[in-house]
């Protein structure tokens, strides 16, 4: 059994699984942004005249809430495009 080969396989599998798991981070911002939009719609329904203010504040809040999801996405990208290469260098 070629252990070098096995080690590379395990490293690649780990990267792929890790990338998938990292994208679970998208759940949080999804729920959070949904809540934010729901409440913004409530507010607009109650006071349609302040639609502009509510919308711009909501978009800003949504973009801020998105940050953790973006962290997950960047981690996933690093695991797919960067980590395998450095593991292969390490193991060869």
């Amino acid at each position, binding site marked *: 059994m070629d252990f070098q080969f096995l080690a590379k396989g395990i490293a690649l599998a780990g990267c792929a699984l890790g990338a998938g798991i990292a994208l679970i981070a998208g759940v949080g911002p999804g729920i959070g942004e949904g809540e934010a939009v729901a409440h913004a719609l409530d507010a607009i329904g109650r006071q349609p005249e302040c639609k502009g203010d509510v919308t711009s504040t909501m978009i*800003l809040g949504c*973009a*801020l809430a*998105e940050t953790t999801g*973006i*962290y997950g*996405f960047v981690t996933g990208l690093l695991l797919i*495009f960067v980590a395998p290469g450095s593991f292969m260098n390490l193991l060869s």
Partner: protein
Amino acid sequence: MEVDITGARILFDTPINLPILGQLRITETMVISWLVMLVVTGLCIWLTRNLKTENISKRQAVAEMLVEMANKFVVGNMGEKFRYFVPFVAALFATSMVSNLIGLVGLRSPTADLSTEMAWAITVFVLITAQKIKTNGLGGYLKDFTTPIPLLTPFNILGEVATPIGMAFRHFGNILSGLVINTLLYAALAVASSALLGLIPGAVGAVLSQIPILDVGIPAILSVYFDWVSGVLQAYIFCMLTVMFIANAAEG
């Protein structure tokens, strides 16, 4: 199917060796940033040529509207005493927006490279810290880390460092995700169109299947969100956060 998603390419190496950073390399990001600077400078020169006080042209009206907007944005959010921040914030916004939108003409936008945003975020971080020290004094600034109890000092330091990292990653992640998704979509549509047109029998099908006909038009729908909405919104948010953080630092 070939999908080509890479970081910014290194165009050529210069023989200059910098002290800590190592060899100076000219990357795609730097060259396109120069282009962005040229575009922004050119726009500024074009918009501010022959200004008049009466009978203004449409061009001057646009220029006045933009300056007015920048003034309103900064003064409205930070107060009158921060009027001197208007040029900085406007420059940041213009550079960020042109950088994001330059991806539309097929160049790799400089903001899809973390170095660009990190540089901006560090600049903003220095401004925030300077403002904090100016408001509270150096002692007050350092003392601020031990509130509410000294035990929390590491967390306060972590929170302080998270500010520029968060700002940079938010902008970077949004633009890069647009780039990746667009690249994947182009590749997938090329495969789909070659499979679809390959159904035509004979030489005509063989020739037509080489042309990625589905790549025309369809990616534009996604581009509306990922390039236009995301690009403008992220530029706005980056400036908004800059303005907010500096205004908060001044309150002490």
